[in-house]
């Protein structure tokens, strides 16, 4: 096991290097010279040169890249161009709210979509199945934007059941007051695709021979579904959830932006709007590393729950 983990970590290194290269090319080569933006209104030759020196832009590209690598390794991305705060601090403070929202969303959506998917799979082929599938497709097709705009307008603005936007201080306040509406919106967007996705896992399992054997043993249909099929269908479900975890940290970008939640997603949007490159670079690198770590964890969990898997 340890050898496997070590090997995987070693394999991650060239990928991380590649991501750094990509980010560097994007922001230092394609992105152009930010000194003009940062210089502000009163731009003189001196100011420009000053900025360039500060940002290290007067050095050659390979040198700049080495500086960037050093930054990544020391987890110090300098200061944000717009807020002048240290980037690492900003990111650290934003992860909490993002996780609160997306964590709650993940938990609730799993609790709802998995049983529903199992139920729909159980009645597969029938009229109910087809209606639900089409309903899910329609629900998926309505843009997330529509749900959010309409939801925010009716439920928050008109009916005042929820606050229109905002965030609180304590975890409890957040979960009780500020999370429900964005969570509901997020649910509406994701429940359609989730049910369809999980349903396909259940149906695939139900077509297996061991279900026939279980029936031949005299087990009831519900027992077959809840014990034999579920346990097998959980394998792809869990793997899937684990792979989705890195996206949790991004926060639901649009939800955060609309509902004024000070999370990572909102931060990225603000940064892109203001061309605040250090923030975007830092977030991209952090999330890339987190994604790779979570993929490794997903594989390890997969090994735990599926006795057939042998890690190579």
């Amino acid at each position, binding site marked *: 096991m340890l050898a496997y983990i070590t090997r995987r970590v070693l394999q991650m290194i060239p990928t991380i290097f590649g991501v750094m290269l990509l980010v560097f090319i994007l922001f230092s080569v394609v992105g152009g010279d930010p000194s003009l933006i940062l210089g502000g209104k009163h731009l003189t030759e001196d100011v420009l040169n000053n900025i360039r020196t500060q940002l290290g832009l007067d050095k050659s590209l390979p040198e700049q890249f080495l500086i960037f690598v050093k930054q990544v390794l020391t987890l110090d991305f300098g200061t944000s161009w717009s807020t002048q705060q240290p980037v690492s601090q900003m990111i650290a403070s934003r992860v909490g709210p993002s996780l609160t929202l997306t964590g709650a969303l993940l938990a609730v959506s799993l609790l709802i979509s998995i049983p529903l998917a199992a139920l729909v799979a159980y009645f597969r082929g029938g009229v109910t199945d087809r209606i639900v599938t089409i309903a899910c497709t329609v629900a998926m097709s309505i843009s997330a934007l529509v749900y959010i705009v309409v939801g925010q307008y009716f439920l928050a603005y008109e009916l005042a059941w929820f606050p229109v936007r905002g965030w609180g201080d304590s975890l409890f306040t957040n979960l009780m007051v500020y999370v429900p509406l964005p969570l509901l919106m997020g649910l509406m967007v994701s429940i359609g695709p989730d049910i369809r996705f999980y349903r396909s896992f259940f149906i695939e399992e139900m077509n297996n*021979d*061991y279900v*026939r054997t279980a*029936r031949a043993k*005299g*087990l009831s249909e519900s027992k077959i579904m809840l014990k034999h099929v579920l346990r097998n269908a959980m394998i792809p479900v869990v793997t899937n959830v684990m792979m989705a975890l890195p996206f949790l940290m991004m926060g639901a970008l649009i939800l955060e932006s609309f509902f004024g939640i000070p999370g990572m997603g909102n931060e990225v949007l603000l940064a892109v709007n203001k061309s605040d490159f250090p923030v975007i670079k830092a977030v991209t690198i952090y999330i890339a590393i987190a994604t790779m770590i979570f993929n490794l964890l997903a594989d390890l969990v997969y090994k735990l729950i599926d*006795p057939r898997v042998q890690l190579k």
Partner: protein
Amino acid sequence: MSSAENTETLLSVRNLVVNFRQEDGEKFNAIKGVSFDIPKNRTVALVGESGSGKSVTSMAIMQLLPPNNTEISPDSQILFEGKNLLGLSASELRKMRGKDIAMIFQEPMSSLNPVFTVGDQVAETLMLHAGLGRRAAAKRAVELLFEVGLPNPSEKAKAYPHQLSGGQQQRVMIAMAIACEPKLLIADEPTTALDVTIQKQILQLIAELQKKHGMSVLFLLMIWAWSVSLLMMWW
């Protein structure tokens, strides 16, 4: 094979007609009127080419065909110890499956649930029909695994299906099937997917178990020559 002179009949199939409703509304006539008897304590071989409907017949006996698109003619009868299986309710059928009539299939690897140990799967039948508790069932499962010829049964009970060979997997299936001393064992091409050297062992195992437990066996086979060698083994 017609019923012998004085032996009682365990299972009697009369004029079995099975139709399948297809996607485009057409009906497919799978079984066109089959009749045969299985005497008590005897072995019957049903021989036919692939696609001739052997499996459908055996699944019809166990009522395992998909209910949504299967139609069995009301003139058909499947009499088990006098009772017509086609008229039983779902719960009555469930009580018989695994207990009075048991079945083993062609592909033992896919017929076993990959995420549960073989010991658990055998014990499940015992807990369901024989009312045994967990520990008693587990103990009895190990005894059954020994009876079907698995080496190191107490260790093998904790193994997962993919860790066993094809022959061993089929022995596990047999153990599951005979766990509650069924009166009829249906064996649907039990050796087709196995190695030639193992095939004979499995057939001999079934023969021994049949004599020991006094059950009838319905063999579904593809090759006529095998049924001849089976007869030679039994006589």
